[in-house]
């Protein structure tokens, strides 16, 4: 069986998720033994229009980007959204709180109406084309990327965590961030990061998106216990999860 051809594409983002792939260092060679990288602009000069698996990093923010991602979808057998900008829109969606015309004027002033500075409300990749798998996080966990590549190379379905960050945080025996008077999004955020931020003394920013069917009642109980309100929570939810309907 020939190795699946893999391409990595980027849209509006910081390219930090691609950087996490680079940070796999030697392990990239193990992955290259399983798949054939045919296009990865940030790291390679080669380009190709034939690929089996496409990884998409970044959000869709312009009409021309929408066309490009649709073309990639047509060519790819499997499409994977890579990182928060692609999976949930991430910080790019904080723009959507404003009228686009006003956003353009804020940054470009008198040039706001120039046609090439056009923008529209940020969309995740899944809001434009069908996404087969999501690799969550801002940035992604590169171990999870390696796991998904191995699964796809072997024709298996990757299973990603569907329980809240609190589970991993407890296993690491961290003190709860609410005990420090902070708001933490751990109770409603999808795990898989090994509670990186609470383990470094920070609260969970929610970058992996909401867990499916978050236990809203339990989250409300936690807020009540520590004298916090839903509005306090929503200000923090809005960093990475603007417009997530389940909230």
């Amino acid at each position: 069986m020939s190795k699946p051809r893999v391409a990595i594409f980027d849209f509006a983002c910081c390219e930090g998720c691609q950087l996490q792939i680079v940070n796999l260092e030697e392990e990239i060679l193990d992955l290259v033994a399983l798949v054939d990288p045919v296009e990865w602009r940030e790291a390679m000069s080669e380009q190709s229009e034939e690929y089996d698996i496409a990884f998409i990093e970044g959000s869709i923010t312009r009409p021309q980007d929408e066309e490009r991602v649709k073309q990639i979808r047509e060519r790819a057998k499997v499409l994977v959204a890579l990182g928060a900008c692609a999976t949930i829109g991430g910080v790019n969606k904080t723009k959507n709180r404003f009228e686009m015309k006003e956003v353009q004027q804020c940054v470009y002033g008198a040039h706001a109406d120039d046609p090439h500075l056009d923008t529209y409300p940020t969309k995740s990749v899944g809001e434009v084309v069908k996404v087969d798998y999501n690799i969550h996080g801002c940035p992604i966990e590169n171990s999870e990327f390696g796991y998904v590549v191995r699964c796809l190379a072997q024709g298996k379905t990757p299973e990603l965590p569907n329980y809240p960050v609190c589970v991993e945080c407890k296993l690491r025996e961290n003190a709860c961030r609410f005990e420090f008077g902070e708001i933490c999004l751990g109770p409603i955020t999808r795990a898989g990061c090994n509670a990186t931020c609470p383990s470094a003394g920070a609260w969970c920013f929610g970058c992996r998106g909401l867990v499916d069917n978050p236990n809203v009642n339990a989250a409300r109980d936690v807020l009540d216990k520590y004298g916090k309100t839903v509005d306090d929570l929503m200000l923090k939810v809005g960093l990475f999860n603007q417009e997530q309907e389940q909230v």
Partner: protein
Amino acid sequence: MANAIDLNVHHVTRIEGHGNIRLKASDGTIEKVEWQVPEAPRFFEAMVRGKHFEDIQTIVSRICGICSISHSLTAVKAVENALGVEVSEQTDKIRSLLHYSEQLQSHTLHVGYLVAPDLLGQKSVVPLVASHPDVVKTIIRCHRVANKWSELLAGRITHPVTLKIGGFSQLPTEKQLLELKQILLDAIPDLQAVANVVLSLADKLPDFNRPTEYIAQSKPGTYPFYHGDIGSTDADEDVPVEEFESVVNEYISPQSTAKWTKWHRDAFAVGALARFNLNADWLQPMAKATAEMFGLEKGCCNPFMNNVAQVVECVEVVEGGLKHIEEILSDGIKPEKPDVKPQAGQGAGCIEAPRGILFHRYAFDDDGICTSANICIPTNQNHGNIQKDFEAFAPQILDKDPDEIRLLLEMLVRSYDPCISCSTHYLDVEFV
């Protein structure tokens, strides 16, 4: 001899972000040579409005994956400036130590993974694994040292989580700093090996010189990355950070709707070579010896030598890092608990990102909610200079075959280590 060249490089590879090269020439005359930036704009200055002062750094860190530590630190400095927060000497020193790690991380990535393939005649680092395994392994070790270094102090490699307004959410322990010290000491032979490899290939770097104004942080007596005023090779006196807008002088280029920058000339350059040209007198001993090895001297106006200046800085930050660790350990690590109250105000922050000088400015209302922002990014400051280099360099290489012209122009762009995701609120979308 009719020599018609029509070069369209759509999305130059092995750089961060999207950029295009356009060259059209016939009979030895250039009709058009342009550096274009078609990256999707992201509107960060608009996005941070309405957000709490503690959350600004979390958002703007996402401007760039490669220089997320620089963006976070600049935001933290600007917010503290706006809120009148003074940090302890310990916080200042640990932040500076963390910031060093990003220079090593970014420069190793750039020189080792993105530029080395050009010098060794390959299209990416992947074939180098087979052709030059020892070189690749050494580069990987250096990159891993930098990653461990930032992970220890920032909580993870990319997008730091430990930075807080007024201090840190978590301080390193003495044991961790001693381990880091050993890691850095062990890295010195590898860094020297990388420098020797680059030296052996330095003849592949074109000998192209164009008199250029260089701008970088300046703090006489130091080779600054973290603290300093704004210095220029064209100016006798430094300018305070508070006045950064009067230095960058953003303008609209007639050939491009991108905002570019200029100060004393029609363009200026920032980055490792700019820092070297301003501050080389105060390099640490090993870094100074590395520069001498390459014959790199102050006043160098060859943009390709930016790669060499990055190698020199890799050595500089390891030496500087070791000094910082010694000082922090001898003072002893004291627990701190940042406690910052909101107040209305505005303030600017400045830092040397790996690619050059970076400025942020924010304003806040009484509740500490952001009301406006201005961010001026190094790659953005270099776009105009890349264009001026193109105009001077292209005529010198027109007699070469098209593939070589393409490679040389791409190498020129790569030498600036552009970080286009960063610079996306300034762009020229002429799709070619």
